[in-house]
């Protein structure tokens, strides 16, 4: 029997890390955005593997299908083809920044991984939450948070429209 899960996991992980590196290393911002879309899609595949189908679908429709599209559209309107200098500072500072990132990786991953490896596996439960659990949780335990997030989105809607509107205001009514 082929070991399917580890194989897919490592393939998706490798592709995800590569495309994430693409986001921060590509000189053209449009390519960065496309790498971000690839990362989101691969992450959705990972969620699918973790049997979180609903989250995977929302990941694709909201992130890959809307947020990154928003980025791409804004970049297209700016029409920045290539930047002269993508990275800030001189190389010594940049190497220091890379060092900081690696250090923070060690700080994040090592203790958690170590604790989990040593932890009593008794709390692990082999029961994937289904959409019904999700709905009961979302509209039961977390209903108030849900409402607050809804209010937040309304505020964001008003705020972003106000910010994005041109200052003239004469043809602003036409636009929206």
């Amino acid at each position, binding site marked *: 029997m082929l070991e399917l899960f580890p194989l897919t996991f490592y393939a998706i992980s490798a592709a995800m890390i590569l495309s994430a590196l693409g986001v921060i290393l590509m000189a053209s911002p449009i390519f960065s955005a496309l790498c971000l879309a690839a990362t989101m899609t691969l992450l959705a595949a990972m969620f699918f593997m973790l049997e*979180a189908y609903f989250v995977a679908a929302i990941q694709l429709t909201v992130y890959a299908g809307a*947020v990154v599209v928003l980025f791409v559209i804004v970049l297209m309107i700016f029409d920045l083809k290539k930047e002269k200098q993508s990275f800030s500072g001189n190389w010594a500072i940049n190497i220091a920044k890379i060092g900081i990132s690696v250090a923070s990786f060690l700080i994040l991953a090592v203790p958690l991984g170590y604790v989990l490896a040593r932890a009593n596996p008794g709390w*692990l439960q082999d029961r994937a939450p289904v959409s019904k659990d999700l709905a009961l949780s979302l509209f039961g335990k977390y209903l108030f*948070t849900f409402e607050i997030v809804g209010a937040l989105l309304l505020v964001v809607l008003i705020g972003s429209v106000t910010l*994005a509107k041109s200052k003239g205001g004469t043809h602003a009514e036409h636009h929206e």
Partner: protein
Amino acid sequence: MPNIMNSIALNHFIILASILFCIGMLGVLIRKNVVVMLMSIELMLNAVNLIFVAFSRYYGDASGQVIVFFVMAIAAAEAAIGLAIIMAVFRKFRGVEIKLFENLKG
């Protein structure tokens, strides 16, 4: 049906998510373009989402996935507001470099 829990330990997901988070952090640190910095922040949020979903699967509790929904809503809100601000700055200074944001007052 093979089971993901028997073949992959939870540590793997934590290490992967940590790597993604640090790549995102590096992006915020080294890039000059504000739009790319915003994308790196999205990357960091996604890394956190991965940990939430992995724990929710291994712990058998839907709460983790619910939090992921909230994170996504916040991330979408942040992207919309962030891009609107960047648009305003671009209109004023014709550029999207982080240095231009120094000139914002009041």
